[in-house]
């Protein structure tokens, strides 16, 4: 992934999470992964197009998703219902959109597609072995892994 793309995603994740969760957010060390299997249980996917092709995935456990949605809605949510899904989807949308906005300011043209949410135990998603950048974010509600797999449109 182009080095110029990295900071916008890292900053957007940090800024948005800090604002919507109103809490201390810590970023773990970035690393590269060769399979793009969601590991934690709930995955929100936002597609990217334009100068690049690919997608951003937000990976977290069900417990974290419920806790995050509860914090964002200002009420205790214990069922994984439409509201929780809509909230997590919106979170993914906001972070990706902010990153895209920053990239736009740097001169890169990205478009995003509407987000999709996937849940399940032992989920497997494989996009023909694309390399992904992992940005682990630690929140009081749990860990959220931001998984960016994009490549230049040749």
């Amino acid at each position: 992934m182009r080095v110029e793309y990295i900071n916008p995603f890292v900053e957007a994740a940090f800024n948005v999470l800090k604002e919507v969760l109103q809490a201390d957010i810590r970023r773990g060390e970035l690393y590269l992964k060769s399979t793009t299997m969601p590991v934690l249980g709930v995955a929100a996917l936002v597609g990217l197009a334009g100068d690049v092709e690919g997608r951003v995935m937000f990976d977290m456990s069900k417990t974290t998703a419920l806790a995050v949605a509860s914090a964002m809605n200002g009420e205790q949510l214990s069922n994984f219902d439409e509201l929780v899904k809509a909230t997590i989807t919106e979170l993914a949308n906001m972070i990706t959109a902010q990153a895209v906005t920053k990239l736009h300011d740097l001169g890169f043209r990205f478009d995003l597609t509407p987000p999709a949410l996937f849940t399940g135990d032992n989920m497997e998603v494989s996009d023909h072995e694309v390399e992904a950048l992992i940005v682990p974010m630690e929140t009081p509600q749990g860990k959220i892994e931001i998984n960016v797999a994009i490549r230049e449109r040749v």
Partner: protein
Amino acid sequence: MKTKQDFPSINEREPEGLKPDGTPYRVLVVDDSMFVAKQINQILTSEGYEVVATAGDGEEAVEKYKELFPNIDLVTMDITMPKMDGITALEHIMNFDKNAKVIMISALGKQDLVKKSLLLGAKNYIVKPLDRKKVLERVAQVLKKE
């Protein structure tokens, strides 16, 4: 000695959502996310605004506006939606009612989208995540201008 009763309620503020005649401003909320619609609804209702309808896409937004016209004071419009996006919907509404008051709400803060919507007639543009204070400020600002 003057008591509290002699002064009009200094510490109580009029809820911003009420018109001078005491009736609430009527708002149409347009967003495809249940979460965002709920959020905007909560923010506005807490200040006395009345959310008279919600639409989940651009098409529905235009329909509802035409239905409820002239009893709509304000529209909050999301940009990325299925079927018809917010910019197109804005265009239709402005063609229908050149005095329509529409505030764009989006996670994308790209300059060209902002410019485009303002040129088409939107009164203001708010970037998500939504901040309660900012939303209320902008809404009040738009409604005051006549």
